[in-house]
C-alpha cells in the first residue's frame, strides 16, 4: 500500500509539472506577452518599446529558464538599467542590497504578482478559494445525499415505476448543463417580471420583489438561503444525475447477489435488507465516482460563478485567463490540477480501503 501511494504521488508530481509547463508555455507565447506589455504599458507602444519592456522584465529569456525561475530552482533575473538602478524578479529597485534574494518561486512560497488585481497572487487565490470552498461545501452537502438517495431508491427495485421515474429524472439532470439550468432558474424564480416571483409578490407572500436573488454577490459576505440556494442547486443538479445513475447501477447489481436472496428467503424485512445488507456494498462504487466528480464540479463552479456573479475561484480563473495574467493563471492552474490529482488519489486509496476483498488480500 505504501509503495502504491508513493508511486501514485510520483506520477502526480510529474503530471503537475508537465501541466504547469504547458500552461507556462501557452501563456508565455509572444502574442500573449505583447498583449501583456501593451495592457501594462500603453496601447500605442512601438514594437521596440514592447521588446525592451519585455526584455527588462525577463520575459524574453529562454522558456526553460523562465520556468525554472518561476519554480524557484533557478536564480531570478536581474536587470541593470543605464541610469544605474537595478531591479530583478525577487526585489524592487529600492530594496537594500542585503535583503535581495536570488531565488524566489513557488518552492520559496512566492507565487508572484497579479497584474489584474495589483496584489500578491498567493493571497488573492487564497481568498477566492475560501469563497469557492464555501460554495463547494454546500454543493456537496446537497448533491451527495440526494444523489445517493435517488440512486438507492431507483436501484432497490430495478424496473419498477419508481425506478423508471427516478432514472428519467437523472437522465434529465445530466442533460441540463449549468448554463441552461441556471438561466431557467433565474428566469422562473428570480425575475421580477416573469415566472413565480410576480405572482407571489402580488399575493403578498414574499417581502422583496423576487423569491430568490439572481445574483449571489451578497452571498460572499453573508450567505443565506435566498441568495445562495440557486447557485448551489444549479451546480448540484448537473453532477447529481451521474452519481445517481452510478449508485443505481451498483445498487441494482448488489440486489441480485446471492446473499441478498438468502436474506430474503430467511424472511428479513425488505427495509432491513436494503439498509443493513445491501447499502454498504452498494456504496463502494459511488464513492469513487463522487471523488472523480469533484474536478467536474470545478467546471460548473466556473460557469455558475460567472452567471451568478459570485467572485470565487472560478470567477478568478475567468479573469486571469481573459486578461492573460500569467502568474495568477499559473497559480490557478496549479490549484485546479492539484484538486484533480488529489481527488484521483483519494478515490484510488478509498476504493482499496472500502473494499474488503482488496483490503484483506
Amino acid at each position, binding site marked *: 500500500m505504501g509503495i502504491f501511494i508513493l508511486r501514485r504521488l510520483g*506520477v502526480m508530481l510529474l*503530471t503537475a509539472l*508537465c*501541466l504547469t509547463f504547458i*500552461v507556462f508555455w*501557452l*501563456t508565455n*507565447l*509572444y*502574442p*500573449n506577452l*505583447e*498583449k501583456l506589455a501593451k495592457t501594462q504599458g500603453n496601447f500605442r507602444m512601438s514594437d521596440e518599446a514592447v521588446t525592451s519592456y519585455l526584455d527588462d522584465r525577463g520575459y524574453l529569456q529562454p522558456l526553460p529558464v523562465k520556468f525554472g525561475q518561476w519554480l524557484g530552482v533557478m536564480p531570478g533575473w536581474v536587470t541593470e538599467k543605464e541610469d544605474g538602478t537595478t531591479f530583478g524578479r525577487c526585489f524592487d529597485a529600492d530594496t537594500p542590497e542585503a535583503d535581495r534574494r536570488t531565488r524566489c518561486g513557488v518552492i520559496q512560497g512566492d507565487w508572484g504578482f497579479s497584474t489584474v488585481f495589483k496584489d500578491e497572487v498567493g493571497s488573492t487565490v487564497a481568498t477566492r478559494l475560501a469563497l469557492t470552498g464555501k460554495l463547494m461545501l454546500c454543493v456537496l452537502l446537497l448533491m451527495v445525499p440526494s444523489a445517493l438517495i435517488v440512486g438507492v431508491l431507483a436501484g432497490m*427495485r430495478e424496473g*419498477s*415505476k*419508481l425506478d423508471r*421515474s427516478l432514472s428519467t429524472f437523472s*437522465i*434529465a439532470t*445530466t*442533460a*441540463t*448543463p449549468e*448554463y*441552461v439550468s441556471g*438561466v*431557467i432558474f*433565474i*428566469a422562473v424564480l*428570480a*425575475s*421580477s*417580471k*416573469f*415566472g413565480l416571483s410576480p405572482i407571489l409578490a402580488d399575493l403578498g407572500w414574499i417581502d422583496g420583489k*423576487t423569491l430568490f436573488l*439572481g445574483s449571489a454577490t451578497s452571498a460572499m459576505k453573508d450567505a443565506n438561503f435566498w441568495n445562495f440556494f440557486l447557485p448551489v442547486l444549479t451546480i448540484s443538479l448537473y453532477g447529481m444525475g451521474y452519481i445517481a445513475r452510478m449508485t443505481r447501477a451498483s445498487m441494482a447489481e448488489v440486489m441480485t447477489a446471492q446473499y441478498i436472496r438468502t436474506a430474503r428467503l430467511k424472511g428479513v424485512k425488505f427495509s432491513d435488507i436494503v439498509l443493513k445488507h445491501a447499502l454498504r456494498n452498494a456504496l463502494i462504487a459511488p464513492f469513487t465516482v463522487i471523488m472523480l466528480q469533484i*474536478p467536474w464540479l*470545478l*467546471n460548473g463552479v*466556473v*460557469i455558475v460563478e*460567472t*452567471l451568478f456573479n459570485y467572485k470565487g475561484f472560478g470567477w478568478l*480563473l*475567468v479573469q486571469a*485567463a*481573459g486578461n*492573460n495574467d500569467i502568474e495568477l493563471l499559473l497559480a*490557478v*492552474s496549479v490549484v*485546479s*490540477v492539484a484538486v*484533480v*490529482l488529489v481527488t*484521483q488519489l483519494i478515490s484510488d486509496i478509498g476504493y482499496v480501503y472500502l473494499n474488503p476483498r482488496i483490503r484483506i488480500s
Partner: protein
Amino acid sequence: MEPLTWTGSLSGLNYIFYFVVGLLILSIAISILASLVPSTDSRAVSADGTLAADKGVSGFINMITGYLFLAALALVLVYLIAGIVMGSGAGIFGAMSRQFLPVWIALIVTFSVSITYKRKLGLYGKLFDSTVGMIGFGIVMFWVFTGIMGGVFDMLVTHDSLSQTSGMKNKLPGTPLRGAEDGDFQWFLLGGDNLARDVFSRLIKGSWVVVQIAPMATIFAFMVGITLGLPAGYYGGKLDTGLSFLANLILAFPVILLFYLLVTPEIVLTGIPNYMAIFLFVFPLIFVGILLNSRFHTQPSLRTPLLIGVLGVLGWLYLSLISTGGYAVPDKVWGLPEFLDGFDIDDGVLVVFVAVVFVNSPTVFRIVRGLALDIKTRDYVAAAQTRGEGPWYIMLWEILPNARGPLIVDFCLRIGYTTILLGTLGFFGLGLESESPDWGSTINAGRRLLALYPHAAIAPALALLSLVLGLNLLADGLREESLRD
C-alpha cells in the same frame, strides 16, 4: 396588428390541457407511492386449471396513467395539427408549428419508413422497439432536420437571423413586426433580442451550427481515440504507459482552462490551433488506410487501386479542410493551392472544432483501450492469432466490431456532451464571433438582461436542453436494445 398570444383561438383548450397534465402528474405520483406498498393482487384458479390474476390497485393506477399520458399526447397533437391548419390563428405555438411543417413531414416519413422495415435494419431498426429510444430519436431528428432545412436551404426561418429591425429590441414573444410589408412574416414569434433580431430565426440558424459541428467533432474524436486506443490496449507495455500518461495529462486539465488557453485570439495568431488541426485531422486517413490495408493486403491487385482511390479522396478533403487561402498555418506552412482548395472552414469554427476534438479524444481513448484490454483475451482473438493474422487486422476487424455496442452508445452520449461543450464555449464568448447564432453565444448575449427579458436566453437554453436530452434518451434506448442482443 394584435400581438399573438401563446395559443391564440385555441386558448379554451388550455384548461383541458392543464387539467389532464395535472391529473397525469398526480397519477404518476400515486403509482410511485403504490409501488412502495407490496401488491396484494388476488389470484383465482378457474375450473380448467388456468390461473387468473387481477391487476390489483397498482395495475389499475398504471392503466389510468397510461390513458392520461395518451390523452396529453393527443392534446399536444391537436395543438400541432390545428397550428398547421390555422397558422398564426392558433397563436405562437400554431404559427411555429406551421413554420416547422417541412420538419414534421420529414419526421413522419423517417418514422414510417423505419418502422415498416425495422426488422431488416439491424440495431437501428431495433431502436424502434423501445419507447424511450424512439422519443430520443424523434427529438434528435427534429433538430437535425431543423438544422439542415433552416441552415442549408433557408427554409423555416421567418426573418434574417442577423438583420436588426428598429423598434423590436427586447420585445416579447408574439409581438407584431413594426413596419412590416406584405411579403414579410408579420410577427417576431419568440420576440426580439437585445439587438432587435428575431429570436426564432436565430434559434433555427443556431441549430445548424450544432448539428454541423457536434457529430463531426465526435467522429474525429473517435477516430483519434480508436487509432491510439486499440494499440495501447492490445500491445500494452511502454506504448500503453506513455499514451495513457498523455491522456491523463489532458484529462487532468479543467476543460474551461484549456479552452481559455487554446481559443483566445492571441493563441490563434500563433497558429497553434492550425498545427493541432493538421495533427488531429490526419487520424481518419490513418484509420481508413490501415483498416483497408490490413484487410486486403493479401490481394494487391484490389488493395492498391482501392487505397489510392479512397486515400486520394480523403487526402483531398483533409487538405481542403486544413488549408485556407493556400496556407495550412497562416503565413507559415504551405497548404493546398487555392484553385485545388475545395472548401474553406471559417477560422473561428476551425478553432472551436479543434478544441472540442482535443478535449474529447482522451476519454474515447480510455474507453477503447479498456474495451481492447477486455476483448483481446477472447477465444476468437486467439484463433485469429493462430491463423497468423497481423496485429492491425486483429485490432480493426476482430476487436473493434465486437466493441461496437458500448462505442455506439458512448457515441450518442458524446455528441450530447460535445453540444454542451460548444454551448460552454459560446457561453464564455470564446471561438465563434459574437453575432454567431449558435445557442451558447445566444445564451451568453441574453443572460445580461435575464431578469427583465428572459425570452432571448430561455429559447436557446430549452433548445439545447431538448437536444442533449434527446441524445441521452437515444443512447439509453440503444443501450437497452444492444444489451438484449
